[in-house]
């Protein structure tokens, strides 16, 4: 048995090997290549290593540091900094012996089972896992573009410079100004996200811009944990709950005589966005034109670009997969995880990607060993959300396979609207703990 280092130096001595595929240190080892080092790809690599000590695992990721999207709205209010979103790959490399290469996959040869990268390297695989996250369809909103998102009306849905720009715009907004959030149609990454963002900005405004206002315009008529949000907004920001949402609301709901700091315009009330006008900073909706000082457009989404390039997507832009192994229904030996995959009842969340990745890791470990995977897996999603920094709630569900699709088990899925103040306070504490825990479970 020779060590990796010895083999490398041997290989260097016999420089006849021109290109050394990173996954081929030992020719008899099975090779798994993962494209994308987000929650899905990283959790997958970690849990596959735990199950399959001898498999060669390579992650191809464009960025040397992962910037987590979940919790990134906390940057907007200054609760955390951009650098606090950074997660490194040290543990994957050092503890789980995963070869994390910073490169970009550009080509797939599905017949020869080879991935080509921008640097000109080829990686052979027995199983390929594609976990590319989302691509934002900026152009689906008329008048909007990637360029405008980077300069004028940031989306900030994939954290990065747009997040910092949005933070600066919010914090420098004139007193009494308006922030407009354009919520996306289903399905999209982080279903409670736009509403949590609106709430956190409203809370920030209470301190720093008390006459400011947040408007959320929405093509949808309801959203995840909607009742919990509306109740929280009523209690914290003077929002008046529409009649159709009053069912089951606790007795302390107040009818406010003045408009609140936050407003939500559902599709049925004209909230559906039609176009963005950068020159006079306004959004045309079915209900009319809304002008704002800061415009945050969360555009429609589809599977990450690489999934489209490789032909893994359907006509709607998402990737159909087998729900036991997450193997693509389009290309054999290629699997798709996380936001990009079609996971039926499961939301597109980091936590969902984390549990999908574990199921897929176990299934692929069996497939590589020539065995049959467990045919009856179960998944979970847990998302905590905030209506204010001391006001938390959650969605939770266990999922199982029913007739080849992922279905939600019957059980209560939301925090009770009659939850006590202590429960909401604690949910806000757990929201922070949950982000730390599941980041560690995915990357450390």
């Amino acid at each position, binding site marked *: 048995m020779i060590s990796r280092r010895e083999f490398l130096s041997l290989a260097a001595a016999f420089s006849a090997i021109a290109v050394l595929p990173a996954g081929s240190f030992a020719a008899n080892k099975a090779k798994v290549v993962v494209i994308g080092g987000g929650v899905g790809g990283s959790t997958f690599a*970690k*849990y596959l290593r735990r199950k399959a000590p001898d498999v060669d695992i390579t992650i191809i990721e464009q960025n040397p540091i992962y910037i987590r999207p979940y919790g990134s709205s906390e940057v907007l209010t200054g609760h955390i900094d951009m650098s606090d979103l950074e997660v490194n790959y040290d543990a994957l490399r050092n503890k789980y012996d995963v070869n994390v290469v910073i490169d970009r996959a550009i080509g797939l040869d599905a017949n020869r089972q080879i991935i080509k990268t921008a640097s000109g390297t080829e990686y052979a695989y027995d199983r390929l896992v594609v976990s590319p996250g989302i691509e934002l369809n900026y152009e689906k909103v008329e008048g909007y573009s990637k360029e405008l998102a980077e300069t004028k009306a940031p989306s900030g849905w994939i954290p990065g410079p747009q997040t910092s720009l949005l933070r600066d715009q919010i914090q420098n907004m004139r007193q009494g100004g308006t922030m407009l959030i354009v919520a996306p149609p289903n399905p999209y990454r982080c279903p409670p996200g736009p509403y949590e963002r609106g709430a956190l900005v409203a809370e920030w405004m209470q301190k720093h811009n008390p006459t400011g206002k947040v408007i959320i315009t929405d093509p949808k008529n309801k959203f995840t944990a909607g009742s919990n949000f509306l109740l929280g907004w009523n209690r914290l920001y003077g929002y008046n709950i529409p009649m159709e949402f009053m069912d089951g609301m606790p007795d302390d709901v107040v009818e406010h005589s003045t408009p609140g700091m936050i407003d939500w315009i559902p599709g049925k009330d004209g909230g559906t966005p039609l176009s963005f006008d950068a020159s006079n900073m306004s959004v045309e909706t079915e209900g009319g034109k809304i002008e704002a000082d800061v415009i945050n457009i969360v555009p429609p989404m589809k599977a990450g670009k690489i999934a489209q390039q490789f032909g893994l997507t359907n006509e709607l832009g998402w990737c159909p997969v087998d729900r036991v192994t997450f193997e693509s229904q389009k290309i054999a030996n290629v699997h798709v995880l996380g936001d990009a995959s079609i996971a039926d009842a499961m939301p597109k969340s980091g*936590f969902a990607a*984390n*549990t999908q990745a*574990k*199921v897929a890791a*176990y299934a692929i470990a069996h497939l590589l060993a020539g065995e049959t995977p*467990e045919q*009856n*897996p*179960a*998944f*979970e999603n*847990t998302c*905590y959300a905030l209506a204010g920094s001391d006001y*938390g709630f*959650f969605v*939770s*569900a*266990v999922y199982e396979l029913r007739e080849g699709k992922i279905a939600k*088990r*019957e*059980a*209560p*899925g*939301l*925090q009770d609207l009659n*939850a006590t103040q202590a*429960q909401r306070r*604690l*949910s806000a*504490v*757990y929201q*922070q*703990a*949950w982000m*730390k*825990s*599941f980041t*560690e*479970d995915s990357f*450390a």
Partner: protein
Amino acid sequence: MKKVMILSALLLSTSAFADERAEIMANNCTGCHGTDGVVEDSALISIAGLNAEIFIETMKNFQSNERSSTIMHNVALALSDEEIAAMAKYFEALPKGEEK
């Protein structure tokens, strides 16, 4: 006494439950309670090494709200007795990690 008998009946019934399925179910907990049930410096607690009967009783108490909770009431209600027992057995066998 009755409670004890129910608990041991649940523990026995896990033998039919495939080990890997128990592990897959348990992996759904570790996103919050840490890889292998160990989480460090957190408002969430480690569950590795927890006595299986206490684990089962705790989940039953979460289901009935005998023990108040935030999310665990919902999570516990979404799991079958057989699954809870299998997860209890799985976590009980895991090393505790460093108590902090």
